[in-house]
């Protein structure tokens, strides 16, 4: 295994090349800046809070939009806080949900304290144990190619833990206005009339 970890922005850029028309939900912290830097668009929902809820939010969206793929892009600390959601997702088996964890083994927003994944906790193994059909840990470029291939060919839901450097990403900030982010996303997905006139 290589000791040089992947660069998070390189990883996200490569993944976004194969995103297609998937909807994206970013968990709070660096994944928000990463997604905004790599592929900012209305069909991104950026969580500025609610740590631990990105995966359950992705599940709700995937169940509501069965014809679209939904990608959750989150971090190891955020995923660990809502780790029971692996089991909830596995029970529902949405065949359109992808969970990408940018695992830098640290809490990046609070002073780079180590997370459990730096002490031996294996998120992909936890996801597999929960019953997620496709799980993998990505350490290098070859693993990343395998992940990109799995996104096209393997059964979903999929959980991938991608080991990335714990460098601070470039701060590319989307709006902090939650109502705006929500409404923009709904307008893009549902069209303005359905998004703005609820009956």
């Amino acid at each position, binding site marked *: 295994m290589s000791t040089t970890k992947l660069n998070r922005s390189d990883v996200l850029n490569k993944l976004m090349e194969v995103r297609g028309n998937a909807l994206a939900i970013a968990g709070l912290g660096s994944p928000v800046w990463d997604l905004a830097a790599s592929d900012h668009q209305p069909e991104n929902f950026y*969580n500025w809070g609610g740590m631990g809820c990105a*995966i359950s939010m992705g*599940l*709700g*969206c995937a169940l509501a939009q069965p014809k679209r793929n939904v990608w959750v892009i989150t971090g190891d600390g955020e995923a660990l806080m809502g780790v*029971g959601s692996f089991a909830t997702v596995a029970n529902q088996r949405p065949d359109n949900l992808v969970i990408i964890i940018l695992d830098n083994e640290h809490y990046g927003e609070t002073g780079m304290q180590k997370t459990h994944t730096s002490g031996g906790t294996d998120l992909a193994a936890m996801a597999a144990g929960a019953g997620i059909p496709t799980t993998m840990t990505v350490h290098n470029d070859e693993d990343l190619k395998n992940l990109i291939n799995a996104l096209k060919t393997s059964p979903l839901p999929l959980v991938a833990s991608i080991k990335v450097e714990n460098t601070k990403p470039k701060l590319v900030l989307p709006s902090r206005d939650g109502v705006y982010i929500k409404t923009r*996303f709904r307008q893009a997905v*549902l069209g303005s009339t359905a998004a703005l006139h609820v009956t």
Partner: protein
Amino acid sequence: MAEPWTTAAHRLFKKHNIRTVGYVPDAGLTELIKSCHADNDIKSVVMTTEEEGIGLSSGAWLGGEKAAVLMQSSGVGNTVNAIASIVSSCQFPLFMIVTMRGQYGESNPWQMPMGQAVAPVLKSLGMHVFEVETDDEAAEAIEAGLKMAFVSNAAVAILIGQKLIGAKSFIADVAEEVINVDN
């Protein structure tokens, strides 16, 4: 005889086009959970913690569908930051049914503190809280709450009182034999 509140809840879920129901079970929710599972138009999602219900419901709304979240009163404590952070900040609709413990006739002292905290905690988060104690009151509040949540982007909790669902029999009332060890 009044329509049982669980029957009314399911009927009103249909009327208001609730498509996803997330729950952590409670004895008082048994009939409603059963009827949701039996309904092919409703995706029933068993959750590991009530907090997931807030993500699930918000995610459903992002995808253009309405969700309801069911839990026991003790689970309300697990939802607090998600409600404050996600639902309030983004004005997501939220519709919760909470079956109460720690109230009228409670026989487990460990349920009392959280049961008493539920209404003030939810109100402190800015939620609309309706406490009901009869089947008719429950049906009326569920109908009103569904409208408020999804048309007015409100966060609503219906607290089903223990007077209505009945205080759960303590194990000593139903077990064949009870042995006390702390004597």
